[in-house]
């Protein structure tokens, strides 16, 4: 982070709002005011907040689709190769490539591939696990996992200007505006 901004400025400014609704309204106005490096923090998912912040829909479903596809094809190939090529064995006169018998395992491998992708891609795209993050330097931030609603404008935002942004956040009805140290 220190490569982007001089160390004297904070990482960003964090504003606290009393309700989910106030946070969503504030996020809309912040975005309308031209700020782009912004993020909201809440103790439960708020769909409207993501829209208000202008985040595009996640690409996660495509990755999950590819994960499922890889799992399914891999599972089928495994059975085709082991039962038909590597160790061909006549079981009850069935053809070596007895695809009907291969469906259950193919299905299970599809689900496994897709589920593993869903979880690990979600964690990876979110950058988790992440042992350190500047927002935790804000004393009141432990409320974000309980009953607090926060909006953060990063210092790297082109429109960021410490005092101006602070008064802007206060004008949105924030109950507190706090600097986020690095």
């Amino acid at each position, binding site marked *: 982070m220190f490569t982007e901004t001089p160390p*004297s400025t*904070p990482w960003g400014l964090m504003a606290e709002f009393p*309700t*989910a*609704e106030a946070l969503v309204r504030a996020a809309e106005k912040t975005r309308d005011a031209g700020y782009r490096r912004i*993020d909201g*923090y*809440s*103790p*439960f998912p*708020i769909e409207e*907040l*993501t829209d208000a*912040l202008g*985040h595009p*829909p*996640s690409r*996660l*479903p495509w990755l999950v689709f590819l994960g*499922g596809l890889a799992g399914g094809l891999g599972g089928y190939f495994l*059975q085709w190769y082991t*039962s038909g090529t590597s*160790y061909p064995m006549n*079981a*009850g006169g*069935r053809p070596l490539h007895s695809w009907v*018998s291969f469906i*259950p*395992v193919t*299905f*299970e491998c599809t*689900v*496994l591939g*897709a*589920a*593993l992708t*869903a979880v690990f891609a*979600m964690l990876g795209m*979110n950058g*988790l*696990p*992440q*042992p*350190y993050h500047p927002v*935790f330097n*804000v004393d*009141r*931030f432990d409320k*974000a*996992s*309980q*009953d607090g609603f926060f909006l953060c404008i990063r210092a790297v935002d082109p429109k960021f200007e410490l005092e101006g942004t*602070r008064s802007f956040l206060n004008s949105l009805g924030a109950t*507190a*505006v*706090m*600097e*986020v*140290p*690095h």
Partner: protein
Amino acid sequence: MATDIATPPRDGKILADGHNYSTLTEKIGDVVQVEPPKMWYVSFAIGFLLLMGMMHSIAVLLFYGVGIWGINIPVGWGFAIVNFVWWIGIGHAGTLISAILLLMRQRWRMSINRFAEAMTLFAVACAGLFPLLHTGRPWFAYWMLPHPNTMELWPQFRSPLIWDVFAVTTYATVSLLFWFVGLVPDLATLRDRAKNPIARTIYGMLAMGWRGSAVHWQRYETAYVLLAGLATPLVVSVHTVVSFDFAVSLVPGWHTTIFPPYFVAGAIYSGFAMVLSLAIPLRAWYKMQDFITDTHLDYMAKVMLATGLVVAYGYGMEIFIAYYSGNPYERALALNRIEGPYAYMYWMLILCNVIAPQFLWIKSVRYSPVLLFILSIVVNIGMWLERYVIVVISLHRDFLPSSWGMYSGTQWDYMLYAGTIGLFLTLMFLFVRFLPMISIFEMRTLLPEAHAHLHNGHAGNGNAGEQKHSVTATPVKEGS
């Protein structure tokens, strides 16, 4: 806040009035921080004692081999398979509640999904033990998984038993992922509330730095719904594949097409019974009637009744097809169930699984926790008997009267079975002690203030608690 325990909410309410974000977080999150109720110690002790019995019986089993069990020829599948199917079935309700009810937007699931998912995991763990031990040499169990080896052998993928390996391991993995992903935001809550530095570190590591960012929540929700969508066909497939273990064979009483749907219904039936058996005492001991209301019990009882009727239809069809198919072996098997040496098992099964749940038609029974608890135990017993009837009665008399025999479990069979109940209880009560038994972040979304304003733009009630801290907030914290 109104936490009036004497009059838990009734008739359609899935959350008691008067809660806000803070009271919800406090009441559910603090369970792991305060001294557990006395009954926790009692239940944990019972579970742990039985678990020690399990360890003993496994040690003896590994020393002497499966000969200490009651299995013989013709009944090569005894308690091990009965218990395996019983436990796997119990697990199904957890996935049903967490995945299928999520996709159907049944919001009442939110207060029971967390411990139902935990129940799934622990039930699958108990189930997995039986086939492993039944192999006789569990240290070779990895042979069932495809891997290059010096014998140049591969698993037989045309066998339902190998399908079962894949189905159960996938099910266990996906259930674990689903459960853990659901836990992450709540682990962050516990991290931020923990006063003990060790607890704070452990919860912090498990929460992986979750900070409730809106971007993260978006991907999180996407991943969660996708997992639910994946778990839904998976849960149906697992017991279907388990039923294939039987249905793909040619043994009378097993070789029927009704087995997959009837096994899945039976699994959900026994699973909901087990959820009720756990939820009723837990909500009383931890005073969670605000969250697990009588309405929840009513809904679960209704699911139990519906699946119980499907199971009853399955029993009826088995007898009808035995008569209608004209197959003498099927007919002999049906008669052997009804009036053979194990007839008492069959009639107890009918009593437990078909007659007992009919009391659930009565509303006052569905709203009586005590009666529901008793009925749920009866159904659990009934479902165990069902698997006993399927496994043992079909095997002990097949096509050749010269190879008929009788089967009964030995003390080691019973000890191992009771032992897995101990393993289940031990894991369950450790879970309740150290992790939030109800999903806190999902419960927050049930609060009126989480939704009403955003859509209607009017001020709701009951957010006094969350306003409390904001008026005393210090405006600026000086940073570097």
